[in-house]
């Protein structure tokens, strides 16, 4: 199946990443997930450069973006994605611990498609991540490939 489009998970904390993967495993969508550990890696992935230079072409079906990340933070990544005509159609879901109004407002202003606060309770976290993965990875119809640049 070469047509399976990946879910991009930007999460600097390896434990959070592992927990998220554990949650998605329950719904057998974990193998679609690509994990990036900072904002720079996310951009490298999206622009097919650095360690992702040789990856299969195509945009991810959705990007789960943490706000606080080393090197390039979540809001910066979001701004880059939404300012690039080719990346703009990718749905971006902010997945963060912050409930601060300022973060919410800024994220939506920059064009985030959803904003989810990570619940402390694991069961709720699992439910949230699972539902997000299913909705964005399975139920939601991704933007057509026609908008992809031909390199």
């Amino acid at each position: 199946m070469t047509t399976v489009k990946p879910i991009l998970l930007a999460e600097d904390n390896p434990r959070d990443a592992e927990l998220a993967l554990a949650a998605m495993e329950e719904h057998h969508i974990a193998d679609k997930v690509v994990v990036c550990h900072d904002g720079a890696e996310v951009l490298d992935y999206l622009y097919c450069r650095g360690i992702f230079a040789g990856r299969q072409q195509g945009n991810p079906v959705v990007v789960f973006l943490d706000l606080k990340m080393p090197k390039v933070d979540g809001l910066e990544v979001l701004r880059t994605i939404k300012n690039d005509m080719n990346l703009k159609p990718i749905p971006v879901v902010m997945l963060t611990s912050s409930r601060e109004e300022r973060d919410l407002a800024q994220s939506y202003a920059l064009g985030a498609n959803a904003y989810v606060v990570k619940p402390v309770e694991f069961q709720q976290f699992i439910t949230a991540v699972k539902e997000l993965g299913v909705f964005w990875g399975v139920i939601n119809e991704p933007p057509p490939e026609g908008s992809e640049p031909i390199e």
Partner: protein
Amino acid sequence: MESVTQERPATPAPVRSEPVPDSSPAPTPKTGGLMEWFTHWPIERRVLAGFGLVFAGIVVISAISYRNTAVLIENSRLDTKSHELVQLLDSVGEALGAAESGHRRYLVTGDESYLTSYRAVVEQMPEYIRYLRGLTNEGPEQQARVATLEQLIARQLEAEAGAITQREKHGYEGVRHLALSGAAKNELEGIHRLMMELDFAEQRALHSRVAQSAGSTRNTIALLGLGALLQLVLLASVYFLIHHDVIERRRVATELQSRGELLQAANKELEAFSYSVSHDLRAPLRHIDGYAALLSKAAGEALNDKARRYLQTISDSAKQMGQLIDDLLVFSRMGRQDMLRTTVNLDQLVKTVLHDLRLDLQGRTISWTMHPLPEVPGDPAMLRQVFVNLISNALKFTARRPETKIEIGAVKRSSGEAEVFVRDNGVGFDMQYVNKLFGVFQRLHRNDEFEGTGIGLANVRRIIHRHGGRTWAEGALDQGATFYFSLPLSRSLR
């Protein structure tokens, strides 16, 4: 409308009948009291007092100057009169002298042309007399002299007239001795003496008036000089008062500004701190709970009951700490968040709160007593939080009652405040601990009795304080509790 009969110390203190010598208040010392009293005045009053003194000084100086000037004008009028009188006396004396010598020449010669000046005097005398009276009408002594003078002149003229008639009838021989000594020798002497007296008295009055005028002018000049000096001193003091005040205000303003900047910086730091708490503290908690769950799943049946209970406790503690962090963040936000300023219909607000709490109300027998609530100025979301916390509390602490009674009402106070209360028939509290109720993390019940983080009432207090109101509570163990808050009805939000 409140029916709470709380044990308030309303009993009046017993009156002591025996005298207590020690406690008699010492009389306040009078010396130095005035200065102290003045320095306690606010600046406005002091400046006003200064300007008042300046104004009063101007009025007093003007009044005295006016009086002195009036005296000067009056004196100058009297002086003119005096000079006229002196001149008139000269003329009268001259005319009388001319008439006398003329009439004697007539007596000797019989030549009627010598009678011209006599006749002129007879003709003019009533006029002279009237002038004299007019010029002396303000001094009774001079007036009396003029009256005597008038009589003497009349007698002189009469005597001379008699001599002239004698000369006409009997010729020179008939009046020879009269022609030598004069017909009215005695009267003439009297007239001269009297005129001298008149003249002298007038000159004396004139001199005394001149002295008075000079004195009065000197006084006026001295007064004006002294007054000007005093006004200058007063105005200078007032200026220094105002100047000092302005400098002080400027200093306070600068200090306030720098403190405000410090406060703003501190606030920013606090914001960054709570942001980091919100973001970073939650992650490890999530991991604790998450890995505990993963462990429980991975180990599965291999775990005994004890181990499972341990894992459950780890998970519960993590969740509880998560709740605490969330509540703390809400509490911190309530203090920093900008407030909306609109009119809030509390009746409507309570209705929506009850609607939102309907899940908590399921399976409970509750008798609600709702009194009408006022409209108040404030932030709807914050006030909603107040009612959510108070009503949730009431529900929580009445959970073990067979029938829950909750009453919500308000009293409008004359002080421009609305007092709102939420009363329940729950487990209540000991009034001994009433001061701890509204503190952060303060709880009066063990966690296994009633759940909670101890933030709810602290939030209520914070929100009400930001609205410019107060919070307090009344209750007794096992007899329910009443929570009150007051809100200003006029807009004075902080």
